[in-house]
């Protein structure tokens, strides 16, 4: 490799605020609601703090809790792992609420907290906009409000929603995202409108986490089938922390059926593989193939192209071991693309202020 290569880390998770930390960002009515109704927390079930997957051991405090403060994040992601930018994805229960107004209030508060407590504290940080998906008009309003701050580079959605992401009632959100040059980032997490598998609730957390890969397949099928990318030709969707090895098999099956039943979806007027190549990106952790270099090479080949993967550490989640978020055996040219070129090409706004 020639010279130092600094990565753009496309998935890091600062600790979410305790509800009392959000109080200053809520208006009087919602502040009083939190206090009077005794709302304890909007933390979700998706990452039980003490579960090994939820944080690398050295990123925990004395009591075992993940220590993902912004300072710690910066020290690890920029210092130890040598990234030069990182995109904060705040995983908070805003999308789980049932009241549209409450969700909109908490989304506003959270995004303002992100600006003050993350972005203003470290100029290398960027962030995703959290939106109240309960009501698309309110979600669009929140995008319009936050997009003025160019440090917001993406709109963040949980992978499991009340309805599949291709459905037309979502489209105003995509129009807003496209207008502002914001990719849609889809991240593991659920609004808990449905059971975590399409066959009901699993027993173990290990199954919960495994089930997200099914959601990503469904969402990709929906986005393509409904014609989202025909309608929004500049839109990019980033599948974050999705795993990557499910993609080739999904596409082969989907493309075979598309050849058979495409009359049903006439707006899908080119092969699904091409649509994915032009519109879909995946972050590289967890890289869920065996760690042997020849298997990694086979998977990269199956994934079809050097453009699709984006570097990510998934801080503080415990995905990889050692010091290297990239799987072994990637050729130098591909490493450079994954670490730097692909993120820059995906996130328009990242080009601002990056060398």
């Amino acid at each position, binding site marked *: 490799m020639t010279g130092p290569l600094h990565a753009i880390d496309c998935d890091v998770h600062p600790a979410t605020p305790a509800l009392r930390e959000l109080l200053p960002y809520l208006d009087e009515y919602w502040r009083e609601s939190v206090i009077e109704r005794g709302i304890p927390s909007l933390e979700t079930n998706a990452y039980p703090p003490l579960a090994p997957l939820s944080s690398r051991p050295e990123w925990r405090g004395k009591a075992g809790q993940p220590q993902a403060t912004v300072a710690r994040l910066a020290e690890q992601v920029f210092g130890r792992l040598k990234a030069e930018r990182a995109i904060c994805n705040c995983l908070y229960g805003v999308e789980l609420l049932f009241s549209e107004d409450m969700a909109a209030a908490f989304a506003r508060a959270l995004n303002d907290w992100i600006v003050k407590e993350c972005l203003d504290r470290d100029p290398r940080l960027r962030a995703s906009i959290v939106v109240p998906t309960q009501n698309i008009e309110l979600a669009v309003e929140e995008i319009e409000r936050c997009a003025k701050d160019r440090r917001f580079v993406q709109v963040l959605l949980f992978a499991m929603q009340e309805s599949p992401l291709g459905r037309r009632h979502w489209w105003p959100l995509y129009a807003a995202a496209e207008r502002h040059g914001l990719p849609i980032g889809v991240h593991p997490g659920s609004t808990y409108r449905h059971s975590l598998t399409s066959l009901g609730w699993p027993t173990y957390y290990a199954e919960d986490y495994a089930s997200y890969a099914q959601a990503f397949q469904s969402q990709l099928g*929906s986005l393509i089938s409904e014609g989202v990318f025909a309608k929004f030709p500049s839109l990019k969707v980033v599948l974050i922390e999705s795993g990557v090895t499910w993609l080739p*098999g999904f596409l082969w099956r989907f493309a075979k059926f598309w050849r058979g039943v495409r009359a049903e*979806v006439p707006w899908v007027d080119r092969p699904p593989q091409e649509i994915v190549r032009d519109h879909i990106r995946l972050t590289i952790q967890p890289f869920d193939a065996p760690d042997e270099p020849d298997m990694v090479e086979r998977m990269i080949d199956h994934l079809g192209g050097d453009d699709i993967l984006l570097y990510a550490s998934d801080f503080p989640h415990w995905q990889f071991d050692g010091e290297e978020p990239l799987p072994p055996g990637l050729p130098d040219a591909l490493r450079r693309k994954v670490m730097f070129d692909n993120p820059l090409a995906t996130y328009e706004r990242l080009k601002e202020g990056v060398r």
Partner: protein
Amino acid sequence: MNVEARQLVREGRARTKIIDVDIHPKASVEDLRPYLSARWWDHLQTYGSRSRQGFAKGFPYPKSQPLASRRDSWPPGGGLPASDLAFMRQQHLDFYGIEYAIMNPLSPTGQGDQNDELSAAMAFAANEFELDGWNARDPRLIASVVIPYEDGEASRTEIRRRSGDRRFAHVLMRSRTCELMGKKRYWPIYEAAVEAGFPIGVHVFGTSGRPASNSGWPSFYIEDMTEHAACCQAQVTSLIMEGVFERYPDLKVVLIEAGFAWLAPLGWRLDKIWKRLRDEVPHLKRAPSEYIRQHIWVSTQPMEETDEPGHLIDVMNWIGWDRFMFASDYPHWDFDDPLVSLPPSLDEARRNKIFAGNARALYRFT
């Protein structure tokens, strides 16, 4: 897909023996009448089937073809596709020289009905008709033990009734169960199947009453079809994580029409998760991918088609060549033709395993 009948030009391939593990002979409700009590016959006349979806006739996602069937599979003498033995012989069994074909009846079978007792009565009737209506007339047609799978005990009864009967190949479930297959309510099925020496065949479809995706209801048939792979990923995950294969080490599961390119990646993903979270599932003694390797078989149709032929070979290598069994899905529109559907690069030994050897070993056909 949707092929026209081929000319009988078989060349050297005619020597290949074929065991087709998925065909769908069609029965009518009237066919089942002799095996139903007056109570259930009357019930069906009055209330019909109520299978956790809203349409009295037809499907929530209309198929791409009438009855999802090949256009050329409608018998010239009338009747529904695959309802006429003579025409099915001419078009499929004799035409391809099928040695055995496993019947997986889809409807009417009562599977997944809201009324468990109706399901049990219809499962019994469907099984009797598989024997009298098909196997007795052509012994190449091997039956499945249709079970009312939402009721574990009633399913056990039906499996025990068929135990030792070599006219049955496997126990038939459908992939869209009301709860995940690893849950204890289904364990009597696995216990009885192991006792009787039957594999469990899981054929895609069914109606769970839940959205086909874990993010709600998709809009289109193409999504409904694609979702089967994700559904079976959840089922395999559940069977492993719940410890079903530890509890029933002789249990064998055949995934029918679910595709297979997802299977090895699922194992890798589960292994990675297990590496971190094994303290949650201490009952697992091995890595998840090892349970897949030992307990799961797959049917070939609908065969994944890769742009690079080598990718398909990679995928099959990762699963293991002893785990694939040829399936045509006759008479459905996405039928795989045995003359052209396997990768042309396969050597004779692998072709023979997939066309017949693996099924012969699993089902102990002589």
